[in-house]
């Protein structure tokens, strides 16, 4: 029985696989198949799904306009929960479904694992949302990324201290005491590393660097350390739970920094603001993907995107991830269309020719790719919570409001 069960199962796997493969040939004649690799289940599901929606809207828009060179696009979903699953799903997409390219991935560790597979299989991989720098630093030929990297975010955060906060406070940048705090997973450790390096470059005064677990139920030790070091500006890299906890406990413990800058994550979510309370979140700064309260002149197409999103899903976008994926997908669709064939090398050649100036896409970014496949014109904006809204305040072209001084009710 043991053998029989095993054989039957194995047969089922093979049959299942060949069925999946068997569906494709007929369809492949007319359609172009792309893989959509995101975490659709598990802990990352919320923003994974949000990212996918951007891609989905871009595909619908493209198909309504006649697809790529007359062929409609179909998306094959791959659910990547953890790196092992990401590897498995990437293998399935590239070998069973024979997709022409993969779009993804939201999470950096999933992307790092999946891109290795795609690169070895010679299938182009378009990263639209994961920020880890090494994704485009490994010398891969067919991995391209439209969005800004962790380093870009960190540089913008640190530079904001010198360029925006210090002048607003009427101080020299070097006079401000900076505290860097971060949750200790991949996201926080990567970001804080670049923040520290950039702060050193800019000769800023970092007095505390504190990692903590995002699962922590008490951040008062962190806050009291910042308080006793008289920190003026806090740079935080955090998820949602710990952002809420930080703001609540900062208030409880009477810690009143001059400014707090978050690195997307928990800072960009409306739920966070609601859980913290708009009056407590007032003035909190945030560096992230482009959000929706951005000057449409600097981000042409952003309003149309929101309209389409609302029409399709019945709610406002939950974060800027959908917009970033939408923008990236559009750039790559154009490049693929220009390539005429679907060969990886032809696509690469066309991606390298892309040259869009800053301020010409829905995210406000431009597009120009380095040899490594990284978009050099993706610039994160500085945003601020004002009256319960996350508005873009820097740079001036994209801003819809002026930056306020102070955090919370101070």
């Amino acid at each position: 029985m043991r053998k029989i069960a095993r054989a039957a199962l194995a047969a089922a796997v093979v049959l299942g696989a060949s069925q999946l493969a068997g569906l494709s040939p007929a369809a492949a004649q007319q359609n172009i198949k792309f893989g959509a690799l995101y975490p659709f289940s598990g802990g990352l599901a919320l923003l994974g799904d949000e990212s996918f929606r951007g891609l989905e809207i871009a595909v619908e828009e493209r198909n309504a306009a006649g697809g790529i060179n007359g062929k409609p696009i179909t998306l094959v979903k791959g659910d990547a929960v953890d790196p092992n699953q990401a590897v498995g799903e990437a293998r399935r997409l590239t070998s069973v479904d024979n997709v022409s390219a993969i779009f993804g991935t939201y999470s950096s560790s999933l992307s790092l694992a999946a891109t290795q597979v795609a690169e070895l299989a010679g299938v182009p991989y378009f990263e639209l949302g994961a920020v880890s720098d090494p994704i485009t630093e490994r010398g891969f030929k067919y991995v391209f990324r439209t969005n800004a990297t962790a380093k870009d975010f960190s540089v913008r955060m640190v530079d904001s201290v010198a360029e925006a906060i210090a002048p607003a406070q009427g101080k020299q940048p070097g006079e401000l005491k900076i505290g860097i705090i971060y949750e200790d997973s991949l996201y926080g450790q990567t970001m804080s590393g670049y923040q520290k390096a950039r702060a050193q470059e800019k000769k800023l005064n970092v007095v505390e660097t504190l990692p903590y677990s995002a699962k922590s139920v008490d951040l008062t030790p962190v806050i009291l350390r910042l308080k006793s070091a008289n920190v003026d500006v806090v740079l935080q890299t955090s998820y949602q739970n710990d952002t809420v906890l930080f703001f609540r406990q900062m208030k409880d413990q009477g810690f009143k920094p001059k400014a707090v800058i978050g690195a997307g994550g928990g800072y960009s979510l409306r739920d966070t603001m609601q859980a913290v309370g708009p009056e407590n979140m007032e003035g909190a700064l945030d560096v992230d993907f482009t959000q929706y309260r951005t000057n449409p002149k600097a981000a042409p197409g952003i309003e149309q995107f929101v309209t389409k999103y609302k029409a399709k899903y019945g709610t406002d976008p939950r974060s800027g991830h959908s917009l970033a994926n939408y923008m990236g997908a559009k750039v790559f669709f154009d490049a693929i269309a220009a390539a005429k064939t679907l060969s990886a090398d032809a696509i690469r050649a066309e991606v390298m020719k892309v040259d869009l100036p800053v301020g010409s896409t829905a995210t406000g970014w431009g597009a120009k790719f380095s040899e490594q496949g990284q978009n050099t014109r993706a610039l994160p904006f500085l945003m601020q919570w004002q009256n319960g809204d996350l508005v873009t305040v820097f740079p001036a072209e994209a801003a819809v409001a002026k930056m306020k001084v102070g955090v919370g009710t101070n």
Partner: protein
Amino acid sequence: MTIGETSLPTATAKRPSPLMRLTHPRVYCSLAALALLLLIPLVSGSPFVVHVFVTICVFAALSTAWNIVGGYAGQLSLGHMVFYGIGGYTTALLIQHFSLSPWLGMCVGAALAALVGVGIGYPCFRLRGPFFSLATIAFLEVVRLLAIHFNGVTGGSAGLIVPLKLGWTWMIFREKINYLYIAFGLLLLCVAVSYVIRSSRLGYYLTAVRERDAAALAAGVNNTNVKLKAIAVSAALTAMVGAFHAMYMTFLEPATMFSLSTSIEVAMFSLIGGLGTVAGPLLGTVLVVPLAELARGWLGSAANGLHGFVYGSVLVLITLTLPGGLVGTFGKRFARLIDALPGGGVRVPDRAAPEPAAITGTPGEPVLVADDLVKTFGGLVATDHVSLTLRRGEILGVIGPNGAGKTTVFNQLSGFLAPNSGTVSIVGRNGARATPTTPDAFARLGIGRTFQIVQPFGKLSVLENIMIGAFLRHAGVEDARAAALRVARLVGLEDVKDVEAGTLPIGGLKRLEVARTLATEPTILLLDEVMAGQSQADTQRMVQLIRTIRDHGVTVIAIEHNMQAIMSLSDRIAVIDSGRLIAEGKPQDVVRDRRVIEAYLGEDFVDAQGL
């Protein structure tokens, strides 16, 4: 029960030759089934199918390795990914810093993991059940947090990326099928190690320790030692799989390398397949992983959390309905079917038992000397300055009222209790005098003891119970089996030798106590009320048996309440009351001793009788 307990045909050779083994259906069927794991992906040629089978092999290997500790030794580690992570990180760091091939890194990682395993196991094995599990979880968490904190060494949460150097030296391939060969090889290695352990002395010892640690100690098993061996082997194998898997993923991060949920999953596969069996973990993995992969494809994106919910529910259902797992529940029936195939069902012809070592030494010389033993429990003095000398070849009866402290003295004579003061010295089998401190050391020196409250290994057969004792002098399984069979005949348990010990009536269990102890071939035998619960006829047989044993040169000391039997049997009698030795001498003298009668019947009685 499992392919691990296969008995194979043999003619005269000491061990059946490998070629002979192949003709047995259990062997060729198992190999054929295993080969499917390699053949299906080879035939399909699809990289996705290959990936699924690599995953199956990896998890089956992990689960098989886990089962050595979790199943055989019954120590439910829920932090086993510690070893997996150590294997992975060691290998990756050695590549990064010293350009060392992962094949070497794998071995270094395995050695390191074995050390860590011993380091964790040594202090934690004294913890029982859930607390051992909690401690392993705590170790896993600590290691994970440290791996994150010391990001200068491990790369922290940002992870380590394995450089993509292709080829067999670097264990990274463009041809995915090569990964399958390695994963399959590792699986074979784990299953082979697991099989060898299961069918060797270590395997029997692990089962014994899991079932009854006191009885295992009395049979001379060094409990901690065998568990440490198990965890070292298990940790090393887990680390090797971890090293390979890291090369396969080419990316390591603490969250996946030291994952609690993966640790639980690995244990779950074993439970579903059958804890403590050779084939169980493999079978569990082969069933669950493809189902999970397929379910994820079909449902994963549609229903968030569904597959986790199904996992959890299946786990609860299995514990409620099939606690023995698939192999534990259906294994025997299935094995009979297999044995019906050509070449099956051949049993080993009984071989001659190896001769027990002859007991040498001068009759009458002191072989066990207890000098001024004192043992207190809190304020209660359980043993009050007791001194005893046992002479070679005699039968010493120990009597005394209930609660007089006889068993406490026995426990000190066999190392189960350390006296507060006083010493126990014995003459070992080699003739040298020794003062051992642990029960297993006493047993190895030739002290055999039975327990008043019987301590059978309930799930083993009667013969296997006796084998646990026989292993002390005969390391080979076949030798031990033959020696055990001889003891079974002597004690009168031969006709029930294949019965599960837990089902024996009390009289049978008492004889099994004696048999297991005799199988250790003791020079001094401590019998604790072996005649209680025996029928009249059985008591006669027991008396006869004890005489026979003594005639072989064994010195016997027996606690007994059956006065008639002990008086007729003993050369000398010692009487213990309220922890003190109140009388010692020939049976006929002792029964007339005033203090003895007082102790048994009370002062009033003595006075009334005018003694």
